[in-house]
């Protein structure tokens, strides 16, 4: 019999109230709720995922200037407890430098009036599709598959106040969760690093994240570091 494996859907900026608003049933699994990241001064993506992977608050160790290049060794993370794993585009571990650098270039260009939102969105969606392909190709082949998707974060930064766009984003993430749930019986953990709050048409990181699991794990307003032991025990 095949050993039960673990699937982690790492959904950047997935916001609790947005999941509810768009009634994303597959994202809201048997147990779900908010996470509390108020211990962090700034809700920085790389810092939060590094803390998730290591079970330690990594804020002091990751300077903002070099954060996108920051890489943890497998033995510093829960990955090394697993016989086999695949980490797709995971910040602080296996981030796809080029794709994200291109997104950041366009983000900067947008604020310098040199790129339209549509150009930026196009690149974000293209990168998302690539991650989706990689993720579904890896499923079922490893003890642990962790797939990172920054769609809600990247689109949200420039368009969180535009409901039609955010609905498309949340329905897409819901479809991914649905497909995962309907194709495997494994333990599925869905986690976001932080949520989002509107600033006019834009979106800023909030200090509340989201989590859900397809079995009871008995957490109540967990921190992002609270999942480390739980994941290790599944190895």
């Amino acid at each position, binding site marked *: 019999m095949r050993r039960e494996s673990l699937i982690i859907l790492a959904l950047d900026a997935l916001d609790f109230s947005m999941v509810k608003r768009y009634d994303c049933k597959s994202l809201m699994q048997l147990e779900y709720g908010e996470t509390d990241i108020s211990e962090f001064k700034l809700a920085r993506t790389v810092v939060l995922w590094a803390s998730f992977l290591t079970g330690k608050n990594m804020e002091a160790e990751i300077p903002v200037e070099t954060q996108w290049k920051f890489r943890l060794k497998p033995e510093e993370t829960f990955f090394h407890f697993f016989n086999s794993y695949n980490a797709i585009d995971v910040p602080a571990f296996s981030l796809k430098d080029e794709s994200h650098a291109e997104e950041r270039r*366009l983000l900067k260009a947008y604020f310098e009036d040199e790129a339209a939102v549509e150009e930026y969105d196009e690149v974000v969606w293209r990168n998302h599709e690539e991650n989706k392909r990689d993720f579904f190709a890896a499923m079922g082949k490893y003890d642990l598959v962790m797939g990172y998707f920054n769609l809600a974060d990247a689109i949200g930064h420039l368009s969180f106040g535009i409901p039609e766009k955010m609905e498309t984003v949340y329905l897409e993430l819901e479809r991914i969760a649905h497909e995962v749930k309907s194709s495997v019986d494994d333990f599925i953990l869905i986690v976001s690093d932080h949520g989002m709050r509107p600033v006019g048409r834009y979106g800023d990181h909030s200090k509340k994240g989201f989590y859900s699991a397809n079995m009871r794990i008995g957490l109540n307003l967990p921190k992002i570091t609270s999942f480390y032991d739980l994941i290790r025990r599944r190895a």
Partner: protein
Amino acid sequence: MEDRLAALERRSISIIREAKAQFKNLAVLWSTGKDSTASLWLCKKAFFGKVPFPVIHIDTGYKFPEIYEFRDKIADEWGLDLIVAKNREALEAGMSPEKGKLKCCTTLKTDVLKNLIKKEGFDALILAIRRDEHGIRAKERYFSPRDEEFRWRYTDQPAEMWDLYVKPSEDFSHMRVHPILHWTELDVWEYVKRENLPVNPLYFARNGKRYRSLGCMPCTVPIPSNAGTIDEIIEELKTTKIPERAGRAQDKERAYMMQKLRSLGYM
């Protein structure tokens, strides 16, 4: 007492002279807009009537006909050593804003300037940016070191205290010099009036509209205005609540977001 415009001018001229003294191969960028024409005039004044270094005009091929006419007329009258730089290959291959605004700007402006800097070996460029014109420029300095990719090397940025502009010791690709950084849009127009500077006719209202800042034809839109003379423009600017780069209702949120994304390390 020295009036405001005289004080602005004095500081700008001292920055331009300092740049000429510190760098071997200096050039000034000139779009023909009001700011860069004022800055060019200051270069002329700083050296007693003759701009003693090359004047670069980046021609994207999509500029207004009035810009080309104005450029050639002034270049002739002021005796400029004008370099017109253009990416002909890209234009022939069909580059246009329809291929993406960023791509178009990068190919027809940024790359052209990069290649020119390399070819001519310029170590410093004078640019007419102003702090009040755009949030992203608000923190700029008078002497601003850049790397090959045009990124601001702010970690090498020397402090500019007591009006001393020092070259950083570290290696850098070229220095950006911003002599009118401390001017406002209104200052520029008042200076245009005082010095009787030539102005591109596109700035004056026709049929209830005028251009407030000039770029390429497909990407620049006029603002509603009836200001048909310099005096009327000055009067309009004293009362307007529309920002210079108009059409941006979400300025505050945009500025907040830009700052926040910077602090989060996205930019």
